[in-house]
């Protein structure tokens, strides 16, 4: 029962604030013996699993670390090639961590304008008159809660499925935005939020809410 991410989208549909709360040690760590049976494909964002699902490793996962040492792209921390390392039998047994790659900045900007479009489509396609757009969305992996303020700003929380109390959290986040971003004399409207106090208070709010949420169960 945790909050995974927060996105704030302005009236025009561009991303003005986002934060990822999900733990960095997500994914699966598996110890392999020689030979390494998973087929990896080189892609711009790293080595992606293209064949050989096992033990929770799925197609689309990215290789993130070997023996606990992070990997950047196709190279190990010492500069060696990952695939060459994995092809040598003397390096085994080896423990490899795979995880879903999080969207990068450009992707997050694109996804938020995509959400903005979907929001308006949902309101147009509603069978009732004067309907708003998406307020809550359920998927198998997460639940999305969205609050649109009267000025058209959207606050979006991604949380684990069946998390309670996100509606309250959304309103409190809006209050924080008003208090620490809007009232900040150096903040320009509709521009990305870079306010230290907002960040600090947001972290406090999330910490508190996680205690409350987990306290309910």
């Amino acid at each position, binding site marked *: 029962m945790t909050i*995974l*991410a927060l996105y704030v989208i302005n009236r025009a549909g561009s991303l003005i604030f986002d934060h*990822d709360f*999900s733990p960095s040690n*997500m994914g699966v760590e598996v110890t392999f013996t020689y030979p390494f049976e998973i087929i990896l494909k080189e892609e711009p964002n790293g080595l992606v699993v293209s064949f050989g699902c096992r033990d929770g490793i*799925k*197609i*689309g*996962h990215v290789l993130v670390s070997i023996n606990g040492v992070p990997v950047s792209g196709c190279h190990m921390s010492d500069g060696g090639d990952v695939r060459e390392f994995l092809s040598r039998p003397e390096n085994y047994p080896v423990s490899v961590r795979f995880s*879903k790659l*999080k*969207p990068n900045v450009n*992707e997050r900007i694109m*996804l938020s304008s*995509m*959400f903005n*479009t*979907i929001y308006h*489509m*949902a*309101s*147009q*396609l*509603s*069978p*009732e*008159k*004067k*309907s*708003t*757009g*998406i*307020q*809550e*969305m*359920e*998927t*198998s*992996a*997460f639940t*999305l809660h969205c609050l649109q303020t009267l000025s058209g700003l959207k606050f979006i929380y*991604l949380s684990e499925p069946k998390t309670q109390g996100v509606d309250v959290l959304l309103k409190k986040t809006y209050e924080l935005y008003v208090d620490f971003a809007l009232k900040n004399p150096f903040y320009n409207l509709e521009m990305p939020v870079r306010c230290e106090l907002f960040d600090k208070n947001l972290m406090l709010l999330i910490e508190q809410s996680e205690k409350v949420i987990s306290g309910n169960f």
Partner: protein
Amino acid sequence: MTVYNIYIFNCDGQCIYYWQWERSGDSNVSQVEEFKLMYGMIFSIKSLINRLSPIDVDNQFGSFATNKNRLHFYETQSKLKFILNTDLQADTGKVHEILKEIYTGYYVQYVVKNPFCDIKGVSIESSLFTKKLNCFISSLSIA
């Protein structure tokens, strides 16, 4: 529980069936355009949630809610998509079962097994399917 309308899309994205029970709002576009918009929205949502998901790669879209209604989505292995709009009181788990029931109990029974129905066709032209589906949905509305 109020059921507003149902859309069934085939694997090519064509709306093969639409029926409405209660609907007050209008999408301000022709019906053909509305079907395209609906399919486009579902397609975008599926792509969005797969990329947005911080946890997993394969992620199924279940439903979304606006302040007036909830849209439920069910996709079969053969990429047939069932979309049902209900009011907000409807339980998501229950409606998911209803959509499965519409597929196995009504679509398969009265369309796939119907020799006069062309399942490769652009729309379901079976009055039996409509009649049975109407009975089923109206029995839900009372409960």
